[in-house]
């Protein structure tokens, strides 16, 4: 059995000048990418079964390369007599179907106008190679790769970049990662500060604002106790009358009402949706302008959607002076369910 030295691995060292020479000679192995300013080994040519029959082309390309960046491994391979003869006679004839030249693909054609001069190519191409080329140069390539990858190449897409033969683009990537791994420069520091400031501006400030927005305003409230003057004034009111003097008191005003036997402070907030009802002295009722809830002079709800009577505040006497304490409320649950109003803190006897 004769032995022939064949190319089992081909790669490109750094320093490619993007001259198209190699692609002209061996278009199925090299792809010159003018856009990336580099030359790469086509994925199909990463397999030694692909490169073996192209040994002569690859060696020729390496010799033609003006900057000598094409490197290859030569390994002795045992072949049959006939194959050896065929190999010796034809300069670059394919002995196996897998060794044919690839059809120029879209990306290649764009990258190398010189390829129009390539020698005539056989029309029929190995379907496996076709699939692989389609996979690498067309959209949705992964699907094609998974379906149509020929036996013996299936491991290739799974290899990490380190395990693949190096080429110009790979080298660039390596250089870049190396540069990033070096000591931080002043620029890095400045960039870091800039990003941190941006993060603070876009993250922490709205967060703080949100926190402020969600936090209750308890501390900013007014004093819940309001001094309302002498009791005599309220004792002089007729039963069913309403004193509106403290309606504008912030944050929540109240009416002082005179019932038959007691004086109470009634919140001005409607129990339906928080509007402020108006006291209609002629109709003798409170009437909400938002949704029409009506309340009797003692605050019991009787018309419209309000579910509960108006709330009452704690009220007590400090000597002669009436004090309304809005920190304690008396909530009646219905117009007939007003037992809480009988609490001694809820009213002053008239």
């Amino acid at each position, binding site marked *: 059995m004769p032995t022939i030295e064949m190319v089992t691995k081909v790669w490109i060292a750094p320093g490619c000048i993007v001259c198209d020479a190699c692609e002209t000679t061996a278009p199925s192995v090299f792809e010159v990418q003018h856009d990336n300013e580099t030359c790469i080994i086509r994925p199909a040519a990463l397999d030694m079964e692909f490169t073996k029959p192209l040994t002569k082309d690859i060696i020729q390309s390496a010799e033609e390369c003006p900057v000598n960046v094409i490197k290859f491994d030569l390994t002795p391979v045992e072949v049959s007599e006939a194959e050896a003869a065929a190999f010796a006679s034809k300069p670059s004839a394919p002995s196996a179907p897998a060794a044919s030249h690839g059809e120029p693909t879209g990306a290649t054609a764009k990258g190398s106008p010189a390829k129009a001069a390539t020698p005539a190519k056989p029309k029929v191409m190995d379907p496996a190679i076709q699939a692989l080329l389609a996979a690498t140069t067309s959209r949705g390539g992964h699907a094609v790769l998974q379906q149509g990858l020929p036996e013996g190449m299936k491991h290739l897409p799974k290899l990490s970049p380190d395990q693949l033969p190096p080429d110009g683009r790979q080298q660039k990537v390596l250089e870049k990662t190396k540069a990033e791994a070096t000591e931080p420069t002043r620029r890095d520091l400045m960039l870091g500060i800039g990003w941190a400031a941006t993060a603070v501006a876009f993250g922490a400030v709205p967060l703080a604002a949100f926190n402020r927005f969600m936090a209750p305003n308890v501390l900013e409230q007014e004093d819940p106790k309001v001094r309302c003057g002498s009791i005599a004034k309220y004792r002089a009111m007729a039963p069913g009358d309403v004193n509106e003097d403290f309606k504008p008191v912030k944050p929540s005003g109240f009416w002082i009402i005179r019932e038959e036997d007691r004086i109470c402070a009634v919140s*001005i907030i409607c129990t339906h*949706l928080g509007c402020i009802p108006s006291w209609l002295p002629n109709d003798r009722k409170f009437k909400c*302008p938002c949704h029409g809830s009506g309340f009797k002079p003692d605050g019991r709800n*009787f018309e419209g959607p309000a579910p509960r009577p108006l709330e009452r505040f704690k009220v007590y006497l400090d000597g002669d002076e009436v004090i309304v304490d809005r920190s304690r409320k008396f909530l009646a649950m*219905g117009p007939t369910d007003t037992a809480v109003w009988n609490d001694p803190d809820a009213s002053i006897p008239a």
Partner: protein
Amino acid sequence: MPMNPMRSMLATSEAIAAEHGPLDALKETINHLCAPYYFVPLTTIILMVGLLTYRRWTKPRMALTLLFAFTVFYVGSMLDHAFFLIIKKPDNVPITIMIFSTLFCIWLAFRQAAINDERMTRGLPLIESGADDKVLVWPDLVFTELICLILCTAVLIVWAILLKAPLEPPANPTNIPNPSKAPWYFLGLQELLVYFDPWIAGVLLPGLIIVGLIALPYIDKNPRGNGYYTFSQRPMVITTFMFGFGIMWIVLIVLGTFLRGPNWNLFGPYETWDPHRPAALLNINVAEVFWVVLPEKTGLWKPGVPTQASFGLPVYLIREAPGLFILGGYFFVLPVLLAKSVCKKIYAQIGLIRYAIFWLLMSWMMFVPIKMVLRWLFNLKYFVAITEWFFNI
């Protein structure tokens, strides 16, 4: 000083109205018909008649006549002082635009549906079938959009200059606008707040509207009507939509604009907004009807709202049991009964889950008008009033 033409027109009209009794009688009639228990059913009837006769009134001549009649009515109404006061508020200018643009859009859709349905009965191709709906982005679409943009900007600028923005002084609890109205597009929701608890009218119902609109294509997978106008192929679906949008949204906005006056009382469109007009609305809950009114009328059981907890249940659950039974029947039993009778076909078509979602949306949509009518007719306040849980329905 030259007299404002609008003012002089108004003065003339008032003089006419004072002299001419029939106009007053007409106004009285319209005021009377605008009581909500007439207004909402009447608009619903008009809608239904419109849907039944859509092939007739959408004909251009007929539609133009109707539009002209409505415009005459609307502009003529402006001669009334009370109506004019509502219309001229800068807040309410969009309402006028909304009324006319809604009418136009409804006409446009039903006109094309009428043509298509006519063609389908005759076996002709649809109007959409020959149309190539593709246009060139440049220049056709870009120019169209540019013109629209310029026109909109111009209209907005003119509008902003002519009518001052209705800005008011800072809120003051002693001087509250009466009535206090929401922005015009929310007046329908504000109207719902009159009948429901805030969490239902303000959270649940708007949420259901949005979720329901999102869910529609998953509930209704019928491909008919996709990409072309038709009414005869989808009568029920379109009728439901027209009721939900036309009556429960647009008509409620109109009601909120023209009929809600001071103290949120109901006024006719030509009625002076008198904040001191007495209006007695003694509301009553289902619990009171069941425990007090019914036994007093029939004498079947002893009148009196329960005040004692029993059967290990809190008192409010016993008190509200009648309302809970009614609501449970409406929301849970009625759909089952319907699935076995009237809606048998729909149920078989869409299956259990989609039927359940469909009835959840449908029952809430129908619950709104039911509750409104009950309020107007019987002053019914809540079916269930459990204030302790904020659960008032």
